[in-house]
């Protein structure tokens, strides 16, 4: 209820105060990150020096720029493959006639979503390693293996977004097209797909943005050979104790991710992701 219609209970600001406190703590952490990104690294010490932009110039040095480029390529490839692999499942899920079938598909889709990054990535280490299946080419610790893991990791998210979009397309449109003589294939290309484009767009951007800061998959499936931005952040912070350099990298990843998502918001309005 709006205006002076008496809303029941506590005033809004009291209800919001605890969550604003939580957000404030988060803001402090991110603030500290940005502060460190501009402080000088003193090798062999966790103490920092004065203000500097050296950390950001290091990010742009060729050996690091390469990781950013690899990250972009892997994210783009992941997005395309995840989209192609997810659409059929999402369609089956959205158009499932029985609740039982829908539940089965949903549980199969969501279960990996809920098993957590480490278990899933470890599982792929077993699959991609050579003890179970003899692969014609080496996959583990190669970009191709990382890509497989990233696609698998992205699919639940992509499927959920696409399935929601497909569910919102009234089947009457498809029936109308059929009554006008369109074949199932034509109906898909001319009616269903165009009407689900907002879902395709938002799914793609979300997957791209999330893959962009993927960590456990490249860390374990890349075996130190294939690295994305997040792996470099971790190496610098936890192995070299170069928090300022790491912070600069993390800040770049954060800004790029938020930039992408802002683009997403612009592209599909504020319907929420």
């Amino acid at each position, binding site marked *: 209820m*709006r*205006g*002076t*219609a*008496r809303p029941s209970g506590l005033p809004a600001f009291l209800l919001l105060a605890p969550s604003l406190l939580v957000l404030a703590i988060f803001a402090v952490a991110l603030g500290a990150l940005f502060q460190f990104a501009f402080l000088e690294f003193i090798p062999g010490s966790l103490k920092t020096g004065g203000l500097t932009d050296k950390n950001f110039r290091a990010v742009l040095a060729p050996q690091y720029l390469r990781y950013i480029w690899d990250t972009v390529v892997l994210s783009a490839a992941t997005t395309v493959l995840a989209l192609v692999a997810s659409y059929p499942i999402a369609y089956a899920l959205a158009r499932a006639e029985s609740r039982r079938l829908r539940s089965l598909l949903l549980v199969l889709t969501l279960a990996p979503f809920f098993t957590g990054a480490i278990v899933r990535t470890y599982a792929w280490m077993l699959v991609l390693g050579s003890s179970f299946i003899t692969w014609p080419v080496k996959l583990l610790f190669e970009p191709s293996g990382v890509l497989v893991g990233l696609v698998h990791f992205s699919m639940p998210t992509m499927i959920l977004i696409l399935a929601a979009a497909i569910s919102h397309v009234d089947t009457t449109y498809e029936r109308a097209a059929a009554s006008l003589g369109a074949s199932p294939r034509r109906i898909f290309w001319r009616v269903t797909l165009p009407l689900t484009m907002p879902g395709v767009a938002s799914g793609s951007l979300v997957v791209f943005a999330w893959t962009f800061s993927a960590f456990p998959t490249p860390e374990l499936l890349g075996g130190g050979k294939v690295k994305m931005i997040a792996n470099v952040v971790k190496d610098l912070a936890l192995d070299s104790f170069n928090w300022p350099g790491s912070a600069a990298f993390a800040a770049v990843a954060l800004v790029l991710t938020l930039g992408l998502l802002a683009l997403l918001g612009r592209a599909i309005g504020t319907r929420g992701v």
Partner: protein
Amino acid sequence: MMARTVVQLERVTKSYGAVRALDAIELAVYEGELLSLLGPSGCGKTTTLNVIAGFVEPDAGRVSIDGSDVTAVPAYRRGLGVVFQSYALFPHMTVGDNVAFGLRERGMSRRDAATRVGEALALVRLPGMADARPQQLSGGMQQRVALARALVIRPRVLLLDEPLAALDKKLREDMRAELRDIQKTVGITTIFVTHDQHEALGLSDRIAVMNAGRIEQLGVPREIYERPATRFVADFIGASSVLTARVLDGQTVELPGGLRLAVDLGRPLEPGRTVELIVRPERVQLGGAGGNAMAATVASVMYLGDHTEVRVTLAGGLRILAAVRGAVALNAGDAITVAIAPDAFLVPGERPAGEGRG
């Protein structure tokens, strides 16, 4: 008859942004009466009810109950019973717990509450339904539960917001009669919101016809129907034909087509004035030879079971609606005679002389 005033609204005003939902409403509701708020969608009926119930705080004006100002008293301390259009039965409670809710809030023991709940359910003819879940009941039964829940706390006033709107036609008519019975039995002061004029006419002691946040007319049903104060009221209550005419002398008017009609309002008309004459469809006689017989053509015929609606076109192109009991052997295009008795005309309101001239 000067009954006690139970609810009084004084210059109650409420705006939502640019929308003036209530515009200086004045209203007194008397002890034991059933007063209907009648009007088209968005005219402010629900807002009026919400202001009385305490769900909405007016921007200006005063709400009193039994003479004491309750404008600032929250809903839960007003002791009024409310029946909502959607019933708003608590879905997580049984019927019995729903009805007992208000009693328990008043600190009544479970045992005493159960007795009262039993009585209330018997009153609405749902005895023994206390253990059912609201979702298992039909719309009509849910309606009765909602009524029992509101009545069981013995509220000072009963407020009903379109309580029958969600029911189908037959059930609605049955419930209407039953509601009236229960209200009479309990003798409770009741305010009833509806946009259905039949409902209002059939149920009410008095009707307040609302339009755009104002009360256009307040009166007993016959007065509202037979002496509408404004053209809006005349139009809204019963589908009527409206003829704009110029007064020739005290007893005669002229229609735009040149047609002359004899009019008997029980008082002379002021010559030269332009008046709006309202004719109820049942007062238009087809093929009649009474007063004001006129040649006409049948434009359309709609058979509605107990009566038939016939639209006819007069010589000057004027359209008139007639209602005839039962069926008629007429077809569109037939030439007939229509007659309107001179005393069948209504002129809305007592307008100051000179208004509407030109």
